């Protein structure tokens, strides 16, 4: 196993595709924390984020052979994560009828102050704004793709992203 830790992502993927599960474990160790953070950013509920993360890694295993190595593995992984979590939110919003019924964690007083601020900021954003942010920054979608998903124009998508970045920057500074 220690030798695997020096493998590049693509080396690990080749080994996994040959049936080497130890390489999958190394890939998991390398990215699981980042995937969990991204799941949490979208759903804002730790238990749900953990469930989503498990589903994401099963998907990774099932679809890894389709990864063509034309981009970095991390980009592929984060886009898969974003799609999976946004699909969860969409289906949940449909089934609950009201987005407000989706369970959301309240930040604990044990959390650092910065965490509470960021948490409150994300809670204040609408579901669509959080979707736009997730698509842009987690899934690295283009403005054209964001516009198509949100059924708005490309210039409106650019404007929304720009306003959201400004809002986050101001909150983070304060």
């Amino acid at each position, binding site marked *: 196993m220690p030798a695997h830790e020096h493998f590049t992502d693509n080396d690990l993927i080749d080994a996994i595709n040959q049936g080497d599960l130890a390489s999958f474990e190394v890939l998991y160790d390398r990215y*699981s924390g980042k995937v969990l953070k991204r799941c949490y*950013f979208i759903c804002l509920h730790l238990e749900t984020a953990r469930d989503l*993360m*498990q589903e994401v890694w099963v998907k990774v295993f099932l679809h890894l052979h389709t990864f063509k190595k034309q981009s970095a593995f991390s980009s592929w992984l984060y886009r898969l994560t974003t799609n999976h979590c946004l699909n969860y939110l969409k289906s949940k919003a449909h089934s609950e009828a009201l987005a407000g019924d989706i369970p959301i964690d309240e930040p604990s007083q044990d959390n650092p102050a910065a965490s509470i601020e960021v948490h409150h900021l994300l809670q204040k954003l609408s579901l669509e704004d959080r979707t736009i942010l997730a698509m842009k920054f987690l899934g690295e979608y283009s403005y054209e793709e964001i516009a198509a998903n949100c059924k708005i124009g490309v210039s409106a998508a650019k404007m929304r992203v720009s306003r959201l*970045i400004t809002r986050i920057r101001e909150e983070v500074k304060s």
Partner: protein
Amino acid sequence: MNDDEQHLFEHVLDSLAIPEPDKTMKTQIMKAVYFLTVAKEVGAFHASIPMTLFDDSIDE
């Protein structure tokens, strides 16, 4: 996405102070992956058996 935005976004993610995934999660995922591997191999084994072996049609 430019570097400045990337940095801001990473800062937001880190600020959420999400605990690292625990060992139990890893064990569950590795178990699921192991079972999927076994299921794939069993499926491939069955697929490799010539269909004539299962042909129980009886000539009348």
